[in-house]
């Protein structure tokens, strides 16, 4: 097993997460595509809905947590945020962090 395979294995176990490797996480890419009907392909939005492409992973994770626990006001995101596990949010956030803004 090469170093890359080991890293990917650790990522899938949630032990290691890295925006640079996130592009390889096809499962997360598919989940992230659930966001892009509203937020635009790969997270690039036009208009009032915020762009999420290239935003730091930690920011997206924090915002999703705040939407979920209700500490951040929302119109619709408090409902969507409850649809994903912590692991999913980490990996989806890594995907968007790795996209060109």
């Amino acid at each position, binding site marked *: 097993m090469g170093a890359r395979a080991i890293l990917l294995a650790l990522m899938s176990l949630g032990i290691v997460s890295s925006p640079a490797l996130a592009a390889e996480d096809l499962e997360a*890419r598919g989940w992230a595509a*659930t966001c892009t009907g*509203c937020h635009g*392909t790969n997270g690039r939005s*036009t208009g*009032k809905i915020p762009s999420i492409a290239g935003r730091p992973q930690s920011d997206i994770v924090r915002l999703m947590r705040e939407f979920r626990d209700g500490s951040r006001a929302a119109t619709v995101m408090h*409902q969507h945020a409850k649809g994903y596990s912590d692991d999913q949010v980490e990996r989806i956030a890594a995907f968007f962090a790795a996209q060109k803004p």
Partner: protein
Amino acid sequence: MSVTRRQFIKWTGASVAIAGASGCASVSGRKTVGRVVVIGAGYGGATAAKYIRMWSPDIEVTLVEREAEFISCPLSNRVLGGVWELKELTRDYGRLSARHGVRLVRDEAVAVDPVAREVRLRSGATLEYDRLVVSPGVDLLYDEIPGLAEPSARDRVLHAWKAGPQTVALRKQLEAMRNGGVYAITVPRSPYRCPPGPYERACQIAFYFKMHKPRSKVLILDANDDVQSKKALFTKAWAERYPGIVEYRPLSTLVDVDVATLTAKLDFEDVRADVLNVVPPQRAGTIAKDAGLITANGRWCEVDFLTYESLAVRNIHVLGDSVMAAPQMPKSGHMANQHGKVCAAAIIALLHGEAPNGKPMVTNTCYSFVSDKDVVHVASVHAYDASQKTMVVVPGASGVSSSANELEGEYAESWGRNIWDDMLG
């Protein structure tokens, strides 16, 4: 819809661009792992075509569409309210070829041979496929309404349930109607395309009447026993914004129409209108029926929600409104867009000899305008449940707006621009 010279050039130009693109691919030595044909360039089909090419350029994608341009059904009720024009809902298909190398074929699929894996087109041409994606939307079942059997009758009593010329024609009927007239819309039994659509339409037309023809009425004749989506929010809008204008009548099933007098014949009464808008019962598009994909109630196509592959015919995937939906999964453009991406990822995996993602997710967000600016939404997140082999709403991850608001009006317009880019851009 007639083809303008400009559109003709656009479409032929696209196929020239494709020839160029595939030439490049062979020069670079990249091997094609498979051919996908997609029927229907709406929210489901266009999204699947783009995402397959974007995620896996080693797959050839041919997209068959009979219309020259995309016109969005979502947001089209705003045309009836007089807030938008059709051009604001219209987009061209050019970027799918220029940016993503999708081969566009302006034609109509008329037959599928699942053994030879071939699609026959109206023009007589055939397309071979390794995987076929069928995303034809709904067909309207006029054979259940004898008075509308003749096409000429349907020019007078419109559906406007597919955005385009009918949307504009219905708007003209509303403009021509006298102040004090009655607009009546009949709603078929669920499931039908766009559950909140009839109620949003009632709001949009009531908004127009309130401004310009305040003695007029909007009458909703619903075959269902209650409002099918965002009930509390729509009911509140009708009571508070349009008192004396909107009237809602549940359990009002349309049996027939008398076109001469614009009378809706319900099972227990006749209702005369000045503008009669019949939304007929629906089923999966005809090509899905002819291909043997309809397996549920004679109307809808059951699929494997991991891949959207038909449960009846191998190597054919069905998307969008034609699908026999999972529980609480609406027939919406947004949902079709989501089907398209799960299906794209699954087809890519299958054509590369890999297993598809076993944990797909889809979401839905449907915005409805209750006035020119104020909007209400319904949203949900759905995850695959392996034990039930279907998509289920994640507990807690669904809901509606707390009240109609202008901020969501801005989000709704942004949603339109983003999802049209997501499928076409």
